[in-house]
């Protein structure tokens, strides 16, 4: 998979210099982009490359490089791929430009939903949404005469039945890898309980009933996971699904397409997408978007060319060629069965991921701190108190609180 990504990136940069296929205009400005490397970005940068003079860098470590690269004079990249949280450092540093004029000139076709605005300025254009939602093996559910779970308690009950029946290796899969993934699991669960992570003064607000309930739900989930869950990330869960080792998971929408990839998957057509199970107040999920930003430290001409190329990459043609690569926001996308789960999760009121500087720290300390509770080294109260203490130390060092 990694190798494939690298090869694709290489192929793209070559393609960029040679081909100028189906692009509405011929780009004459040298342009470079830095984005993440998953399927959707491959599709989009591929389409951008058709305009010529474009070099795509697909890099899963993009978020560590982007802030420095965009702060350079001139910026090392013209187009950046961000999500709601990775946009924060660029926004804070003022290294991405408002797109109001460019949207007016070249982006009339964009839907209002795609325009990410901060204080009235359009700072990014979103192309897709992503959230974690329920995926389950229809064949196993039919065999055991189970209903698709709608609440998290039902989700765990179904897992218990599947465990009892012993039809798969593990009833559930979960992205519980210590660090960012585990943090995200808590974030989803805490949002589902109606919690907020920090108050207006950036003080932590997780050590409460909602936090405790969220931890307990996570621990209850681990009963049904592969015991090596603290190392299982999205790709691992996706592979568990593809190899028929698990029956259910609350997994990223961007991984849904892979279930029906005949080259990798042994469960083609057997996995159904549904809404993330409901917590007490909202689905156990959070909504993310991915989109493009344009660097501030480049000339206006370059910015205009970059924006036009980016629009070519995010057009209807690209979406129709890659309908399964993501849950697109772009005009012309018809949500199929693969997108049903993401749509239902949003319709059930999943909350957007509350990205901010303080949330970045909170997410890190959650990701590092929860494993001790799941391992049984700490009780829930101590875990939450320690996480809040770790947050205070980090936030003080970062200057967010006094």
């Amino acid at each position, binding site marked *: 998979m990694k190798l494939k990504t690298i090869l694709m990136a290489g192929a793209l940069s070559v393609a960029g210099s040679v081909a100028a296929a189906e692009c509405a205009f011929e780009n004459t400005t040298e342009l470079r982009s830095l984005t993440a490397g998953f399927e959707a970005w491959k599709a989009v940068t591929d389409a951008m490359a058709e305009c010529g003079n474009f070099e795509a860098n697909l890099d899963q470590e993009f978020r560590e490089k982007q802030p420095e690269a965009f702060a350079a004079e001139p910026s090392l990249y013209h187009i950046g791929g961000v999500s709601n949280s990775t946009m924060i450092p660029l926004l804070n540093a003022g290294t991405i430009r408002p797109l109001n004029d460019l949207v007016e000139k070249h982006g009339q076709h964009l839907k209002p939903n795609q325009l990410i605005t901060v204080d009235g300025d359009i700072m990014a254009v979103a192309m897709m949404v992503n959230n974690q939602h329920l995926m389950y093996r229809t064949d196993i559910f039919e065999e055991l005469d189970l209903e698709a779970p709608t609440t998290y308690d039902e989700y765990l009950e179904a897992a218990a039945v599947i465990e009892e029946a012993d039809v798969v290796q593990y009833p559930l899969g979960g992205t519980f890898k210590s660090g960012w993934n585990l943090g995200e699991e808590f974030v989803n669960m805490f949002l589902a309980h109606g919690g907020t992570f920090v108050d207006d003064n950036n003080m932590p607000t997780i050590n409460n009933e909602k936090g405790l309930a969220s931890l307990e739900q996570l621990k209850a989930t681990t009963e049904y996971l592969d015991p*090596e869950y603290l190392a299982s990330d999205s790709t691992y869960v996706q592979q568990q699904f593809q190899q028929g080792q698990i029956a259910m998971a609350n997994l990223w929408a961007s991984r849904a397409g892979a279930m029906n990839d005949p080259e990798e998957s042994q469960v083609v057509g057997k996995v159904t997408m549904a809404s993330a199970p409901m917590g007490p107040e909202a689905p156990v999920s959070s909504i993310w978007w991915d989109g493009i930003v344009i660097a501030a430290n480049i000339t206006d001409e370059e910015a205009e060319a970059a924006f036009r190329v980016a629009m070519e990459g995010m057009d209807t043609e690209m979406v129709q060629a890659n309908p399964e690569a993501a849950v697109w926001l772009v005009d012309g996308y018809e949500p199929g069965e693969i997108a049903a789960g993401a*749509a239902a999760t949003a319709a059930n009121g999943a909350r957007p991921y509350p990205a901010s500087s303080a949330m970045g720290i909170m997410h890190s300390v959650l990701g590092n701190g929860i494993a001790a509770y799941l*391992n049984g080294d700490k009780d829930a109260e101590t875990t939450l108190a320690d996480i809040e203490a770790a947050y205070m130390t980090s936030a003080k060092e970062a200057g967010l609180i006094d």
Partner: protein
Amino acid sequence: MKPKVFAAFVGPSIFMMLLFIAFPLLSVFWNSFNVTQPIYETVEVESCTAGFLEQTCTTEMETRPVLNEDGEIMRQTEFVGLQTYRNVLEMDRFWEAVSSGSWTGLQNIDFWAALRFTVMFTLITLPLVVGFGIGIAMVINNASQFIRGPVIFISLLPFIITPVIGALSINWLFRGDGILTALLEWWLEQDLALFAQAWTIELLMMVYRVWHVAPFAAIIFYAGLQTVNQDSLESAVIDGASRWQRLRLIIIPHLAPLIIFVAMIHLMDAYRVFEEVVGFRAEGHVISLQWLTYDFLKPDQAGNRSISRASASAMLTMIGIAILLVPLLKRTWRDHKGTH
């Protein structure tokens, strides 16, 4: 040699050492006593974000950095003394755990948990590396001339592999139903999950490290074995010394300086154990000091990173290595004085 010529010869390397060793070290030292942070302001911001079908707009208080006229984030640097070290060491929690005699309490503090593993890892692998190193060297030395080349090549292979790649391979061999776990399960007739608890992970890490470093020790010892005085060995045989006595009384004393050299290199390397934690994805169960430093330094998604704590942690690692090296250095110093 004239002083001028001497200076011309030594100058470039002193300059390089200052640039690449002294200066970074000083900057880490300085960073560990100072905290640099952006100046923040809190403003009310209306932001709109993408939902699935419609936009969600919210107005909330947001903390964001103040930019100066050049559009750069305004930062201030403040001298904080030992505060950063206190944050890393968490001494109040440390004393609390010590005074209540709670080992789990102690192991719940990141730094002390990392220190416990790092020191244990270093001290357990050290004798194993030296022991296996001597063993492999003896095997090579006793192999017939004909197959010695291939034997050296094969025994060196583990050392040639890039550490991260090696750790990843072990991870894949044992993770989930990896080949070797499947083999063990078949042999022991029970379900195993080697990465589900700390002690099995620690064991695998140590096995991996010994497997990886022993060839290096072996090749050094093999070189040392070439210079063992054959006359003493022969006279020992005539005196009726057993194999073991020859090893203990002639070969080991002869290799002693090399053993100290290998031990020093290994102490410095093993104390910086890092690849194993990353390669085995062990951070949920076990962390090391070097991993802790890395974790402080790694920016989160919102771009925050704890440079001061990373610096303090790096300084503490250096101090730790220095303490571990003291006994060996003392011995070398004594031997050195003895020869004069």
